[in-house]
């Protein structure tokens, strides 16, 4: 039995942490929200150098053909560091939907970090994130894959998520249900992992802040009420993480339970990240309510991702159907 990251997986996570810590992702994210993409694209290329966008691309198209476990590690780190851009769509969704179609060469560009990809897939993903500057596709209900025609911007609660209306263009392929389901599960699990990382970041930042911030003559973190709020966040995150790992294993094995387990992971990570966000705001006070405080980036990101690739209502509904 081995149900923990391997040494190689730990090393991969550490590589990403080191790279992202030194690459100023917050500055890139702030620029990205204003439509200035250059710092974000530079970050994207740096991550391509360590293989992130190639993770799920088949080897024959220049990818690493790694599995959902490695992808989940990468997405947690992207969430922790707040890297901007359509990572879920390019890394998790594109390989699952495009391989074997007339557009599969796009994946070679994705693996090289040269092309960003985005999708609209109504009803659960009605708009495409970061569609401007990306190759956009449209997946209709029933599995018909089209080129995507980018429409106007729709304002998200997270200014870092630049959402666009998309309409279908040229038809590309009709995809099997199982394939569409697998792509959705990969995206939902990636989203869960990003939320987990964002929750970890919010907790880490909160712990740092309350250790330094003094009120009433002592660090705020010495007050028992603050301690207990943060302890509950630690608990929620610790018990969300193994659900991500478990669902990734199921997905890798093509298990019939994969959809159910991805839903459990998405629900638990969204709840834990939301608790982390609300608690971060509470223990920071007004400072975290400002745009200039970096905490606000993760607060708004979490709120937006809670509904991305399946709301809590959708995933709980899917779970109860699977369970009864």
């Amino acid at each position, binding site marked *: 039995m081995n149900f923990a990251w391997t040494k190689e997986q730990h090393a991969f996570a550490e590589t990403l942490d080191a790279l992202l810590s030194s690459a100023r992702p917050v500055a890139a994210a702030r620029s990205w929200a204003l439509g200035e993409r250059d710092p974000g694209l530079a970050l994207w290329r740096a991550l391509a150098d360590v293989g992130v966008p190639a993770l799920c691309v088949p080897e024959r198209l220049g990818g690493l053909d790694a599995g959902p476990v490695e992808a989940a590690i990468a997405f947690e780190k992207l969430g922790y560091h707040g890297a901007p851009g359509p990572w879920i769509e390019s890394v998790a969704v594109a390989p699952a939907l495009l391989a074997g179609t007339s557009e599969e060469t796009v994946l070679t560009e994705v693996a090289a970090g040269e092309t960003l990809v985005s999708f609209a897939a109504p009803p659960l993903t009605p708009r495409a994130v970061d569609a401007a500057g990306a190759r956009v596709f449209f997946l209709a209900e029933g599995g018909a894959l089209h080129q995507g025609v980018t429409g106007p911007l729709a304002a998200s609660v997270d200014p870092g998520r630049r959402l666009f209306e998309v309409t279908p263009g040229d038809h590309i392929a009709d995809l099997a249900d199982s394939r569409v389901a697998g792509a959705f599960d990969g995206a939902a699990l990636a989203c869960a992992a990003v939320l987990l990382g964002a929750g970890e970041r919010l907790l880490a930042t909160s712990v740092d802040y309350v250790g330094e911030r003094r009120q009433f003559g002592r660090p705020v973190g010495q007050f028992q009420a603050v301690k207990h709020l943060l302890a509950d966040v630690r608990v929620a995150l610790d018990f969300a993480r193994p659900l991500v790992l478990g669902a990734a294993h199921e997905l890798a094995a093509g298990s019939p339970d994969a959809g159910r387990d991805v839903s459990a992971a998405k629900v638990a990570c969204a709840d834990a990240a939301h608790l982390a966000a609300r608690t971060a705001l509470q223990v920071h006070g007004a400072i975290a309510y400002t745009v200039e405080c970096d905490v606000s980036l993760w607060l708004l990101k979490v709120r937006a991702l809670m509904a991305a690739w399946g709301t809590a*209502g959708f995933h709980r509904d899917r779970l109860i159907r699977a369970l009864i």
Partner: protein
Amino acid sequence: MTPEFTEREQAFRAEARDWLRANSPGRLPSMDTPAGAVAHREWERTLAAGRWSVVAWPAEFGGRDATLTEWVLFEEEYYTCGAPTRIAQNGISLLAPVIFEHGSAEQRQRYLPSMADGTDVWAQAWSEPEAGSDLAAIRSRADRDDDRGGWVLNGQKTWSSRAAVADHGFGLFRTDPAAERHRGLTYFLFPLATPGITVRPIAQLDGDPGFAEIFFDDVFVPDAGVVGDPGAGWKIAMSTAGNERGLSLRSPGRFCAAADRLLALWRERGASSPHLRDRVVDAWIQAQAYRLYTWETVAKVEQGWSVGAHGSVNKLFWSQLDVDLHETALELLGVDQELRGGWVDDYLFALAGPIYAGTNQIQRNIVAERILGLPR
């Protein structure tokens, strides 16, 4: 519909309702944007022209001498008809009670009428970078200037709501550095255009500059800008913090209107979300509880009861209710819950509730120690 009201109260309510329905412009652009501020000031002028701006004030200052009951009725009607948020709120609810109770006759004449008609918008200057929840840790100081007959202010205030659009500020400064914490603070009023004052707007979660930092660099304020005695500022500020006007922090009409909007959303989208039923019902129950609690408080105040620390009970309840109600609405919106607009913007506003005007941790301390009597 409980509670029951006298004929006079009912007539007052009907008059307010009719006037508001005829005159309210509905939702305006955010008051923290330049265009929104103009529109909100315009609305204050309209309110004042109809004598609905400060109903509880004496007629002499633009009010109607309304009873507490009438004032709460007005607030219910105000929110029910969806009238705009009040740009004059800080002045009317936080400063005016202080001026009425501790100000000079001259200060009342000088400041109240222009506050009541929206000519002068006021911003509070309480918190400092190192004095948030711990307000008594204020360091900004005012030094005596006998030659000019006044004080020289230096320091920095922050989280000052409306400061980006306001004309005047009010706040506490340390006039006796040797005195301990709560002592040695003095209550000042000052135009924000005074030389030496710099206002730096701060963008909130929604992107609008809802509050600001205010920097004081040798700012001269004459003695006429001091409320009450020098050194008595803390006592003055606290004397009105827990009085019946503490009710005004959040009118029940606001939550009842929000609960009604939530029910409308439920009618539209609830069929596909039966799992949200309890949260919708509970939002309505809580809004109803808040309304009845307010009426119970009004009745008790009219019987001579003092709100005091119970304002903290009140704040804990409405701030949690506000967040819960809006989160439920977002869930009902499904995939659209991330789009800016009515519900999301109101949700972002609600998020400030548990942290502003004393975090909910501080409020729980107050409830535990001053109401339950637990040991400090």
